[in-house]
């Protein structure tokens, strides 16, 4: 079975979710491109979009149509070539409409597993629940005569566990997209001891066609991305608690300070609390829960997250893409208030911003926001100058930032020492491409 044949019948599980919908979109486009090749013209390509909710699937089809159209508008030069033999399609608008139909026409929204019994590849992006994943994999594999391959998007469950318990010897690998899959360039590729060579080769070709950057991670719970993010997040949460106690700050004040330090002083795209909200308080808590049993020398668990979930404050996004409130409250995607899980209320930044900013102290003069730095050709020079100045500052905020930076570096080293990542570079690549950081955690700053 060659690459195109393999992709002739595909199922995405959890297709209406945040990750699933992106995987579905990218796969649909790739399949459509294949279907236009002369040798594939008379073949039928099928992409099952499986999810449990009919409502969510309706939303998915709408999302898909909008996104496919947007992509089509961007590759019009190519599309005119693809449809050159269709004399009835003359204008760009006519060609785009036909292309959107052709892509949508491959997609079958389904709520049962049966269609997956004919698939050659199963992309899995259901909830981070190992038992659920195993049950579904087993059911499909028991009924599918094609010996299908399973590409799981899990960001935390060890692949070997899934392989063993679902009895998929050699036919599974971790193919971990970053959120949102259509935008983020990074995929973490995780093999088990048994993963077949041809499955890996297909994964590499597929990633290449999707223009994704592959970083191999060893099969250890959390892999590289969450291995860094979860520890980084826990450090941020605990630092806020520590500040509240030692410096006699309210919880919202402490959250504000840590978020600001981790964003502005660390030149990151988001502060740590905003990132937790973006990923979802529930998702973070769940991932820590999956990872923690595998960790011998540390306790990756936060009672604060438990408390937030008890209070029903979860973060994450609305289906429109707008940010839900979590540790922070958002207006037009910008944080404007911080949550006090003791009084169960948001407190506006305006009530304490001046006081907190004064406590933090002036930000080093050479600091520029992430947006101004990350796309600058002289990025490395700018960062070098800035961090040199940061290391020399004696302000409260400056010291917090340096501690934060060092912790992030320690986490990076730990991932290499634990053999989760093969090299320092792999850790840095994951943070640069999967988290859009301007610099890797393992650096000389």
């Amino acid at each position: 079975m060659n690459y195109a044949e393999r992709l002739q019948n595909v199922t995405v599980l959890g297709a209406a979710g945040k990750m699933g919908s992106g995987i579905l979109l990218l796969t649909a486009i790739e399949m459509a491109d294949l279907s236009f090749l002369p040798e594939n013209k008379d073949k039928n390509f099928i992409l099952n979009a499986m999810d449990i909710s009919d409502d969510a699937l309706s939303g998915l089809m709408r999302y898909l149509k909008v996104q496919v159209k947007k992509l089509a508008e961007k590759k019009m030069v190519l599309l005119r070539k693809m449809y050159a033999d269709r004399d009835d399609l003359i204008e760009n608008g006519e060609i785009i409409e036909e292309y959107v139909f052709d892509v949508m026409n491959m997609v079958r929204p389904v709520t049962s597993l049966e269609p997956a019994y004919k698939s050659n590849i199963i992309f899995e992006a259901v909830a981070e629940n190992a038992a659920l994943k195993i049950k579904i994999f087993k059911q499909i594999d028991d009924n599918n005569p094609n010996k299908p391959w399973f590409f799981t998007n899990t960001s935390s469950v060890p692949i070997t566990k899934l392989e063993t318990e679902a009895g998929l010897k050699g036919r599974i690998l971790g193919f971990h997209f970053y959120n949102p899959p259509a935008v983020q360039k990074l995929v973490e590729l995780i093999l088990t001891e048994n993963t077949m060579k041809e499955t890996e080769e297909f994964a590499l070709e597929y990633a290449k066609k999707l223009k994704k950057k592959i970083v191999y991670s060893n099969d250890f719970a959390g892999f590289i991305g969450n291995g860094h993010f979860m520890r980084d997040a826990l450090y941020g949460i605990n630092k806020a608690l520590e500040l509240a106690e030692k410096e006699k700050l309210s919880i919202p004040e402490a959250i504000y300070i840590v978020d600001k330090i981790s964003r502005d002083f660390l030149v990151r795209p988001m502060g740590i609390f905003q990132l937790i909200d973006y990923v979802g308080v529930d998702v973070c808590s769940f991932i820590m829960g999956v990872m923690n049993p595998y960790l011998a020398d540390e306790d990756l668990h936060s009672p604060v997250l438990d408390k937030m979930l008890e209070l029903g404050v979860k973060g994450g996004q609305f289906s429109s893409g707008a940010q839900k409130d979590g540790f922070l409250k958002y207006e037009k995607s910008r944080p404007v208030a911080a949550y006090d899980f003791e009084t169960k209320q948001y407190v506006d930044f305006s009530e304490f911003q001046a006081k907190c900013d004064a406590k933090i102290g002036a930000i080093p003069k050479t600091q520029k926001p992430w947006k101004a730095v990350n796309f600058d050709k002289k990025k490395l020079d700018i960062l070098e100058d800035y961090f040199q100045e940061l290391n020399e500052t004696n302000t409260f905020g400056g010291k917090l930032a340096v501690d934060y930076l060092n912790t992030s570096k320690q986490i990076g080293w730990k991932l290499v020492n634990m053999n989760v990542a093969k090299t320092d570079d792999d850790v840095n690549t994951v943070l640069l491409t999967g988290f859009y950081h301007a610099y890797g955690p393992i650096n000389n700053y």
Partner: protein
Amino acid sequence: MKKLRKKVYMAAGYNTISLGTGRKEFNPKKPRPGLEHYIKEAGKATLEMIGGAKNVDECVIGNFMSARFNKQGNLAGFFPMIDPGLRYKPAVKVEGACGSGGLALATAIKTILTDTAEVVLTLGVEVQNTMKAIYGADVLAGAGWFQKRKDGHAYFFPGQFSDRAGAYYEKYGKEKTRLGMATWFKNAVENARLCPTAQEYHNTVEDLLALGLTEPNGKFFVDNLSVYDCSKVSDAASCLIVASEEGLKRCGIDKKDAVEVIGFGQAEEDLTQDPEDLCELSTTKEAVRKAFEHAGITKDDLATIELHDCFSIAGVLATEAIGLAKPGKGAEYIAAGNTSRTAKIPINTTGGLIGWGHPTGGTGVHQAVTIWEQLTERAGDSQVPIPADRPYGLTINMGGDDKTLVSIVYKRG
């Protein structure tokens, strides 16, 4: 062509801003003013300068594709909306693609010459940001022959002029041509920065020449042009009056505040034929020749020019069509600074189509307004010197790929 049988003037010019990417007010996600807004703003401004609608005898509006950009036809019917005083007055819409504005001027001039009108309110308008550029390309392709659309480029007109640029690179050398084109872009933006209504007025890029030298990428756009070689998508209207001597008097406008039309040339080429020589704008050349002959002047009598640089390569080719540069020497002529605002004959003093903007069907009228501002010395920061011994202005407005041409010679009244 016979000499004008009586004096024809233009006055009371007005340009709205050219709205589109580059202007701070522009937000593609928010609703924008429509066709009606632009027609009203420009029309009212001119009426105010001429003592009101009662002084207007007839109206002409130039527009290219409102039927598709705005799903609106019958534009002549918008004149009474500008002012009830225009109700029941004769009005007509003319269309000749991006040369529609020039055709509106020519129509108004001829109306004055027939003696049936003394004052013709003349307006040009296009509102094109109603759709994304990739669909706008379909609409604008209507300026070419539709039978050739299927084989054309996704970005049809950039594709046409990319072919011209490619042929020119091959014949005369790419490097020096790109330098001339980049200089054209630089001049356009620098001039636009002096004109508050220009689309590139807010442009703050430091190294414009480097940007202009951006290497074309045929994978995403066309083979031989980058986006900086192209005019942008614009919403704008321009308005003025075309009037007889008596008409000016009626409006209370001193001749000194008007420009006189000394001569004009019109030329049309077969839409179904490809250009004979990609490296020459032969129809432009013919229209300019006619205009010069009609006016009895030469290029050496010109103080300033507004020409149709829908693409930087069109600017290069136009300098040759006018006779400012020999064939193959246009790019070097530009690179040497001969078209800049400090040159002997400054060209496109408020940015032209690339810098000021290109509201397709409105551009011809915009050019006339700009020349009127320059020759009557009301161009503000973008004013260039108008020498007494060569006081003439020239406009060249082009529809399609060198198909529909109107060129006019002006002098202060």
